[in-house]
């Protein structure tokens, strides 16, 4: 945007960016979360017995792998200003689909494809109701949260399908040879790169942000709002189903109540990672750091014999802080800008001085979004 302006107006009186490049990269919310992750990890490694052992990383990544996977499409959905609360129920539905088809004698790869298809259909139902019928995604996915979970529990009842072949269950918990990193992270990294490229380096991704800023403006700019949202919901369902397969194999148990409540962990991590719940801003590296922050904190606190209630209180407090901090910062910045504006006016500035004061003193909306 600033570049386009620069081309048209040959002479301009202010800089392209208000801050140098290193500041724009480092002084962001995402970097703050990454710094928090590193800080918490170092402190925990120094203070908590057994935390520094490599096996901690293995367990940690196995625990958060499902959240990491689902957080990828969830980030994009929340950036468009929508939400998908049904993901954990899709995990359960996929787990049950996978389990019952395996029990019925289908080969594992075919059962996996069927589970992924079930997830895609579930996502399509969400997307259809949101985009074609035009209902709010909060209401739709609360409904399908109950619906998909009900289907999952209804199919299997309180029983579980177990006895998956060891070759598959071992694969789900195996490590990359010579490292403490679980193999599932390879799948995650590949998907994360794809999602990051799509979100941050394609017209589709720009459309996602544009929808979040203003759905109307995006439509008039040629973004296909409905199609974009529908694709995101289908992606969300499919990735949740993938997480369901991982979940089933990791625990060797296909159950209707698998991953109950996981949607809240995912959304908490996405918001902690700097994605605005109102849509329009966020970045994948922040979200990934957010998932790790919650995972590392929980792991360290468990090793320090802190009870689960206290762990929930701490992650909840972190989340509240992370949600209110942008508003607090915006308030502080506008107060400061107003004061500076008064100062400039009191000084009876010359026209040239006014020109240089404008870009800093007047926070233009898109710029503010970028900085929050």
């Amino acid at each position: 945007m600033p570049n386009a302006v620069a081309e048209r107006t040959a002479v301009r009186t202010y800089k392209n960016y208000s801050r140098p490049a290193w500041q724009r990269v480092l002084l962001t919310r995402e970097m703050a979360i990454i710094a928090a992750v590193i800080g918490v990890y170092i402190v925990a490694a120094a203070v908590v017995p057994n935390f520094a052992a490599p096996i901690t990383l293995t367990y940690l990544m196995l625990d958060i792998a499902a959240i990491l996977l689902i957080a990828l499409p969830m980030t994009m959905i929340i950036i468009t200003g929508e939400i998908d609360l049904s993901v954990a129920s899709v995990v359960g539905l996929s787990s049950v689909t996978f389990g019952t088809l395996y029990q019925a004698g289908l080969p594992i790869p075919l059962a996996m494809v069927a589970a992924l298809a079930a997830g895609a259909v579930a996502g399509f139902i969400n997307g259809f109701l949101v985009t074609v019928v035009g209902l709010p995604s909060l209401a739709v996915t609360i409904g399908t949260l109950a619906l998909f979970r009900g289907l999952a529990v209804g199919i299997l009842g309180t029983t579980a399908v177990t006895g998956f072949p060891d070759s598959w269950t071992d694969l789900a918990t195996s490590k990359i040879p010579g490292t403490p990193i679980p193999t599932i992270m390879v799948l995650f990294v590949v998907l994360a790169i794809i999602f990051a490229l799509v979100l941050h380096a394609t017209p589709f991704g720009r459309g996602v942000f544009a929808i979040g800023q203003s759905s109307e403006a995006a439509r008039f700019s040629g973004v296909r709002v409905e199609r974009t949202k529908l694709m995101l919901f289908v992606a969300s369902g499919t990735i949740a189903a993938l997480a369901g397969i991982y979940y089933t194999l990791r625990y060797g148990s296909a159950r209707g109540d698998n991953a109950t409540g996981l949607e809240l962990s995912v959304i908490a991590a996405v918001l902690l990672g700097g994605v605005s719940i109102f849509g329009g801003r966020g970045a994948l590296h922040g979200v990934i750091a957010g998932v790790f922050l919650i995972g590392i904190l929980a792991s360290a606190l468990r090793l320090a014999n802190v009870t689960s209630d206290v762990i929930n209180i701490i992650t909840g407090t972190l989340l509240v802080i992370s949600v209110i901090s942008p508003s607090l910062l915006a308030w502080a910045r506008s107060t400061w800008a107003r004061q500076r504006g008064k100062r400039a006016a009191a000084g009876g500035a010359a026209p040239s001085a006014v020109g240089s004061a404008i870009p800093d003193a007047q926070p233009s909306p898109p710029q503010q979004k970028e900085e929050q």
Partner: protein
Amino acid sequence: MMSSRTFRKGSFAALAMTAALVVSGCSSDSGSESTSSATGGAEGGSDANLAITFLPKNLGNAYFDTSNAGGAEAIEEFGGTYAEVGPAEAAPDAQVSYINTLTQQGVGAIAVSANDPEAICDALNEARDNDVKVVTFDSDTNTDCRDVFINQATSEGIAQVQVDLIAEQIGDEGQIAILSATANATNQNAWIELMEGILAEEHPNIELVDVVYGDDDDQTSFDKTAALLQTYPDLKGIVSPTTVGIAAAARYLSTSEYQGEVAITGLGTPNQMRSYIEDGTSAGFALWNPADLGYLAAYASKALIEGEITGAEGDTFEAGKLGEYTVEADGVVLLGDPYVFDADNIGDFDF
């Protein structure tokens, strides 16, 4: 712009600091415990690592509070280190991360009530590979994932105690009915079948007129009780082998003209049944004693840690006030006969 940037950096530094302080603060007050257990494990050989951690299905559950208190009592008796960890929700997978954590901490034994027989298997076996003994109680895992299972009661014992109770309460003759859970509830159906056999064999004068299903729903069970009493005016007793059913039936009887006339017994918990025992609606009901269950699990853990037993059939060990126990086939240790709660002892229990 400088001041707002500083403010932002400051706020996140504060956030990170808070997190760091919480981590270090929490570990400094409970860290001593885990350190002592870790060093206990490192010493190994000569004196055994008697750090035993109870992992219930979920925390804040009165039943497990009682059983774990029994475990704590036993561990105090033999001078081990007691700890309790667990998830807030009884989700099938929620226990895995706790088992992993305990493995890392190198505790001597884990006493766990499994939320899922399969989901925690890998984690438990990893713990056992690292020399942690695994005792299941209340709810078992697959037999190859643990060393010993403390079984609270056998189906035969549960069926027998309920028949004995109802026979005693109605004077060994007359019509009775059973108010069960759901029509396909595996446990209840097994018990009912055994009870029918015992009734036919030992109590020929008692006639079982009907088995109805309250679906483990309070209102449905309440309505079915009302229907039973209208259909069978000569009914002398109701047996409900489910905690939801017995409480609903007792609630109906306590407010009806049948109070004291129609006996109610079965499987219940003291907190649900206390008022009905006190007002005479029920003369007594059965369940196991969770405190004894935890107590026995702690002693079994100790015996495993010290190498006194391996979980093989025929192994015997001492369990303090409960006496000597023998490991049965598949590594099962049976707590004993179900425990009968009545007006004399119900005040001693809170679960």
